[in-house]
């Protein structure tokens, strides 16, 4: 009988975290941010069929990066959780906090269970409140930790670089067009301030909103095709060039 080598728990957790982080870093990024009428999801996604952003319930949206089959599992589980809860109690009893907790439990259990590999995913659960102050963006990582993001969340390959870009131009109460253009510009600049921006057209983007102004109870809506193309062009009708970076000292990008 072979004896397994002793591995310190710290080392074990670190290895698992590194493994998950590497998997997540391979994918393109997703940005979730507040705008004037709700919450905006912008993902770089060239597939029209496999979604990174999805509706969970009336006021709940979901966004994910990482391994498709894993976050698809989580998405399905979230829809089942929300629909069962809403059917058993009431539609108003399905909350983002409840769902984020359920996801956190699940991800945490899988991360520390010895038998399974950790999920290589990072997800956002966004909840549209009755007023904009009550809007919530919960960001969950592979190990089950939850962060409550005040302004925006960025996940995926070049998350840090993109977050820098978003942070620079973000302000509360952006209208939808400005918010979309800000997010797309940030995604396009994932090579860092000094690299050339990539072209991201309608075909390369997956955009959706939780829209407080929508009359129906289901507030989630995808924005595609002509509507998205119109938003990418700003009000003056000029083609949107990503706002040129103010001359910042060139920092070395890792």
């Amino acid at each position, binding site marked *: 009988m072979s004896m397994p080598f002793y591995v310190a728990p710290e080392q074990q957790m670190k290895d698992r975290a590194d493994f998950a982080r590497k998997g997540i870093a391979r994918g393109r990024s997703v940005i979730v941010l507040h705008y004037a009428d709700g919450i905006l999801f912008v993902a770089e996604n060239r597939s029209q*069929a496999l*979604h990174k952003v*999805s*509706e*969970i319930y009336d006021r709940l949206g979901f966004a994910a990066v990482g391994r498709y089959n894993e976050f698809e*599992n*989580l998405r*399905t*589980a979230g*829809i*089942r*959780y929300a*629909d*069962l*809860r*809403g*059917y*058993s*109690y009431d539609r108003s009893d399905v909350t983002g906090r*409840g769902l984020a*907790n*359920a*996801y956190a*439990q*699940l991800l945490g259990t899988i991360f520390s269970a010895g038998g399974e590999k950790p999920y290589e995913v990072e997800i956002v659960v966004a909840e549209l409140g009755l007023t904009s102050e009550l809007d919530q963006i919960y960001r969950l990582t592979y190990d089950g930790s939850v962060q409550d993001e005040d302004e925006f969340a960025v996940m995926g390959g070049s998350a840090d670089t993109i977050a820098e870009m978003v942070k620079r131009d973000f302000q509360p109460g952006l209208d939808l067009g400005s918010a979309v253009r800000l997010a797309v510009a940030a995604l396009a600049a994932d090579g860092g301030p000094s690299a050339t921006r990539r072209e991201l057209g309608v075909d390369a983007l997956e955009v959706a909103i939780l829209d407080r102004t929508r009359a129906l109870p*289901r507030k989630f809506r995808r924005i595609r095709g002509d509507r998205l193309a119109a938003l990418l062009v700003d009000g003056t009708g000029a083609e949107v060039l990503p706002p040129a970076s103010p001359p910042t000292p060139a920092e070395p990008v890792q």
Partner: protein
Amino acid sequence: MSDRRPSGGLSPAFIGAGTSSFVDFAAAVAPEVLPSNRTAGEGSGAMSPHGTTIVAATFPGGVVVAGDRRATMGNMIAQRDIEKVFAADEFSIIGIAGAAGIAVEMVGLFQVELEHYEKIEGAPLSLVGKANRLATMIRQNLGLALQGLVVVPLFAGWDETTGEGRIFSYDATGGRYEEHAFFSVGSGSVFARGSLKKLYRPDLNPANAAMAVVQALYDAADDDSATGGPDLTRKIYPVVMTATVDGVSRLPDAEVADLVNTLVARRMERPDGPEAPLT
């Protein structure tokens, strides 16, 4: 699961591939929330209020569904403003006759079922697919139906593939039948259908189609004590919904009131309603 209600966590049953059906999922995880998993004793039917007449008619460009507002328990009126016609989803309408409690629960379940499928699959079911899912749910209710808790829905909607309004009727065993032009279910349905036979034209415009179904409900209420006529003093009017290419919409109360007031004014002159030509 020992708890009657779903717990906070996501058990393994929530994760992974599997069904896109909410009913099938709930049957596996929390069967006690489904109406079909209940048993009822003999004579339960007498304890449940009953909803009565639902009428539907197609017109070029859509379908209209209307229901009266009465629920009865034996010879008593249990409720005078019950609503029995609902939007099942964006493009379809369900009206229900029969045991009111189970029926309303079944409508809620059907709405969740359609929404659940749409969210998981990323695309809605076809109209016929929806009609078939409803048939399965009625079939699962057969046990309760045999105890007297019968639910008979009428399903109608806009079919995006064929570009027309379509109507489906059901029997208590889950049989599904497509109806053409117009149909009615519930205790007053015989009279409503007789009325529509004389009033229906295939080329009705939406407003006249709405008038035709409201006339049919009036005729049903005229001869069936379980069907409620329009309550002019309390301003309780039938629920009228249409499904067209633009989706489902409910006719505002003010517009239904106009239809009803016109109808009643004309019936002051001729109580049996509009006269159909003999030949």
